[in-house]
């Protein structure tokens, strides 16, 4: 029995720590991959400490978690005591139910409903830009509270009810009875509740995403938004460091507990006994320590909050909202574009500017945030179809091109495109073309052409298909020669039939998981963007030989810089856009993201061409005869709500089969 339980415990801890060991291992990986280990390197740790944006989000996350855990523990414990003593059974069970609601609601719904409420309240009371650190904190306290209450309440119920009554009979005031008898009894549950609240707050991303305001981003949001290029190993490095810090703290507290402090305590006890005083109540001491500890935490949190608000009070602030992993951020010796802009602006205009750079994971997320009207962004970088929708809904401002002289370097191919026919609202930032990536060690060269490779039964169980409806339907529709923006529902239905026929061959429906799967050889065929192919190529395993080709026709997308109607400083926004078009930052961004640039200063620059290499240039810039016509024919357009709903129901049919 004894041995069996030891083995069981050991196995459970192996299970709990296996992924942590993987994190640890891959944080030392030479390559950018999280699935192929190519050699030992400390470079991701260097990257981490250089990455001020990430470190800022770490700080934000900690501040938020400490505040949320502190408030929800105090309020939740009081609530549990109150609920426990409640005499109306009806009221008690009603409150019990309400307590469970934040746990039941899916995160995305809690997030959106709270956002709607904050927006509504701010309109009612006339605050602009209401989403802020405070709303985020309120949301976190709200979803932490039930966990604290659910910890403390059973413990209270388990406690002998006659204990506090006995204390009062013996002359304690009710408050003293609570403090001396009840609180020590429920202390372990309170501590557990607080740790849970802290942990939950530390890890939440969906609710945070919707309730946070301009410029305050937490680490989970930052990681979740890394959808363009998947999670980077410096996040693994960060996790490893957190692990060792906690482990060190744990060892330290155990060590001090075991020797010195025990000796000290014994000495103190002896002294008290010698003086004829009664021994100190260890429970009371524990409570004192706990209170002291929480006070210290709150003080630290207050100091940090103060520091945060302090830095946010600079005179000029530019709020930029972009995809995750979509700007050169100074990693691996690249240019830190945001920081360089701040420096350049100070030199040029003699005034400081602070850029608040935040990220989003999808066009739809960004749209939800902007249309709530409770945020203030100055520059956003959405994709084409979303730009069309935002122009239609008056969410973008026409640009003053006098402030953007560098617009002249944008290639003529990018004028008069469907989403912005008069070139009034947007400046193209990057573009991509969907191609087919395949592992030449698993796929016959003869089969590698057209969309048919993705339907080739020879490669059953090795094909990766997009895990979003528009792109997946796109592959079937391009293959069948259909218009991807058709309103003819029967065409969508027949595309579904093709996808259903493909489903038994599909290994996995993927988004950013495509990187790991293709790099490791787990998948052999996938459709993805040209730029991403090179990211994979960089990290492929020795047994894998990735190649790339364009099927015809295929999908084009363009992401462009725009100024939303909530912009506070349009001229500054335009200066930023102009800066992004100037040669050095534009080349840095193109090299960092590996996506094609519409900027002639980039793709005609010899250094850039040399850096990319001949093969990459041939793939990224294939030299389409008539780019604009091709683009206008094959790019996705904004579809109306009813059709989107219909497509989504077809997609559900595919997914539940």
């Amino acid at each position, binding site marked *: 029995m004894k041995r069996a339980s030891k083995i069981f415990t050991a196995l459970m801890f192996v299970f709990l720590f296996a992924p942590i060991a993987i994190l640890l291992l891959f944080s030392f990986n030479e390559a950018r991959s999280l699935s192929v280990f190519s050699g030992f390197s400390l470079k991701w740790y260097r990257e981490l400490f250089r990455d001020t944006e990430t470190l800022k989000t770490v700080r934000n996350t900690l501040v938020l978690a400490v505040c949320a855990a502190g408030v929800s523990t105090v309020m939740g414990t009081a609530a549990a005591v109150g609920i426990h003593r409640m005499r109306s059974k009806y009221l008690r069970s009603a409150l019990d139910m309400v307590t469970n609601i934040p*746990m039941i609601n899916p995160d995305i719904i809690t997030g959106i409903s709270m956002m709607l409420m904050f927006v509504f309240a701010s309109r009612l009371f006339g605050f602009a830009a209401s989403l802020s650190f405070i709303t985020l904190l309120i949301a976190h306290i709200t979803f932490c509270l039930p966990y604290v209450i659910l910890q403390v309440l059973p413990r209270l119920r388990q406690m002998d009810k006659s204990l506090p009554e006995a204390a009062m009979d013996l002359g304690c005031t009710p408050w003293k009875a609570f403090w001396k008898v009840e609180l020590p009894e429920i202390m372990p549950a309170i501590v557990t509740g607080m740790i849970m609240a802290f942990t939950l707050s530390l890890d939440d991303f969906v609710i945070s995403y919707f309730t946070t305001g301009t410029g305050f981003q937490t680490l989970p949001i930052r990681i979740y938004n890394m959808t363009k290029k998947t999670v980077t190993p410096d996040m693994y490095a960060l996790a490893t460091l957190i692990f060792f810090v906690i482990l060190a703290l744990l060892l330290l507290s155990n060590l001090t507990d075991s020797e010195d402090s025990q000796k000290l305590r014994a000495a103190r006890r002896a002294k008290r006994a010698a003086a004829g005083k009664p021994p100190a109540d260890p429970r009371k001491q524990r409570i004192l320590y706990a209170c002291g500890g929480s006070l210290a935490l709150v003080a630290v949190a207050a100091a940090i909050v103060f520091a945060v608000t302090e830095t946010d009070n600079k005179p000029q602030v530019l709020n930029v909202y972009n995809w995750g992993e979509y700007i050169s951020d100074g990693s691996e010796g690249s240019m830190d574009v945001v920081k360089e802009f701040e420096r350049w602006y100070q030199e040029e205009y003699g005034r400081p500017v602070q850029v608040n750079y935040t990220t989003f994971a999808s066009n739809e997320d960004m749209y939800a945030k902007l249309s709530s009207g409770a945020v203030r962004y100055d520059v956003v970088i959405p994709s084409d179809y979303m730009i069309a929708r935002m122009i239609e809904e008056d969410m973008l401002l026409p640009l003053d091109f006098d402030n953007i002289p560098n617009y002249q370097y944008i290639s003529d191919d990018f004028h008069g495109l469907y989403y912005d026919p008069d070139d009034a609202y947007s400046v193209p930032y990057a573009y991509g073309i969907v191609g087919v990536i395949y592992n030449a060690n698993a796929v016959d060269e003869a089969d590698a052409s057209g969309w048919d490779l993705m339907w080739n039964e020879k490669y059953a169980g090795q094909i990766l298909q997009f895990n979003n409806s528009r792109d997946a339907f796109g592959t079937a529709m391009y293959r069948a020669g259909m218009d991807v923006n058709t309103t003819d529902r029967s065409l969508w239905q027949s595309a579904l039939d093709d996808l259903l026929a493909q489903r038994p061959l599909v290994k996995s429906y993927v988004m950013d998981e495509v990187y790991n799967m293709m790099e490791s050889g787990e998948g052999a065929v996938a459709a993805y963007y040209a730029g991403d192919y090179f990211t994979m190529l960089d990290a492929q395993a020795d047994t894998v030989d990735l190649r790339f080709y364009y099927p015809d026709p295929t999908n084009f997308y363009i992401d462009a810089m725009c100024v939303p109607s909530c912009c506070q400083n349009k001229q500054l926004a335009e200066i930023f856009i102009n800066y992004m078009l100037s040669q050095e930052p534009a080349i840095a961004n193109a090299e960092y993201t590996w996506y094609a640039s519409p900027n002639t200063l980039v793709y005609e620059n010899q250094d850039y061409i040399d850096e990319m290499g001949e093969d990459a240039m041939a793939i990224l810039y294939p030299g389409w005869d008539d780019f604009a016509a091709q683009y206008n024919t094959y790019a996705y357009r904004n579809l109306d709500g009813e059709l989107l709903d219909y497509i989504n129901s077809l997609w559900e049919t595919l997914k*539940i089969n």
Partner: protein
Amino acid sequence: MTKKTTRRNLVTGIAASPYELWAVVFILVPLAFVAYYAFTDNSFRFTTANITRFFTATSSVAGEDGAGREVRTYLLISWRSLKLAAISTVVCLLLGYPLAYIISRASPKAQKTMMTLIMIPMWMNFLIRTYAWMTILQDTGILNNFLAGLHLGRVHIIGTETAVVIGMVYDYLPYMILPLYSIMAKMDHRLIEAARDLGCAPVGVLRRVILPLSMPGVVNGVTMVLIPSISTFYISQKLGDGMFFLLGDAIEGQYTANNLHFAAAIAFILMVALLAAMAVMRHLTSKYTYGGAAA
């Protein structure tokens, strides 16, 4: 004594009031927004169409023989989500219960250390932990390389129900262990010894003493695991090869398709169903959770 008890009830009655206010403003009001969206259409006119759609929408699914058959889309999705969540919860309970018990019987120092060790993985970002599981479970992953190295053959796990359950169990196990542990640590072990001394077999001790005493922890643990696992989408996407379409995916998909009203309707139905289920569960176990046997 009566006077004091009254004063005490007054004091503790006030203790819950900040939370009551908070619950009304930040739990019930957002909930009202969910309900409002669930019962309106895109132009905010009242409709029950979203609710009926959940129960009546059908899709054609290929059967074993390849012939298509009509199924109720969202009922099928709900059933699959419930099934996976239930399996995960049971596995969590089966693994978590003995572990919590073992920990609760260890020395105070060992208890503290082990509980901290259980919490540590939760402090690493959950997205990153799930990614790490992909690396382990892949066909070309760590586990398979390890097995191949031992000449034990390979196992295909990623993309199967097993992988999704492993992911959920891994992520939610601490939520099961914590409430169980906090109850068991408080349990009067003399009762167990007494039962043994009086000739109760180990199974009887478990069934008649330990289990009833720890029931409040079981109820809370089950609640804390079942609920998040029923609406998760991230784990099923990453570890299920995108082959599993669960309620969380459905809600996310509706939101992305700009159909917030139907997304709210799905959430609303899910919430009503879970609240009802929990009311039943609490009623059935009330003799344990409201004093009774636990004293």
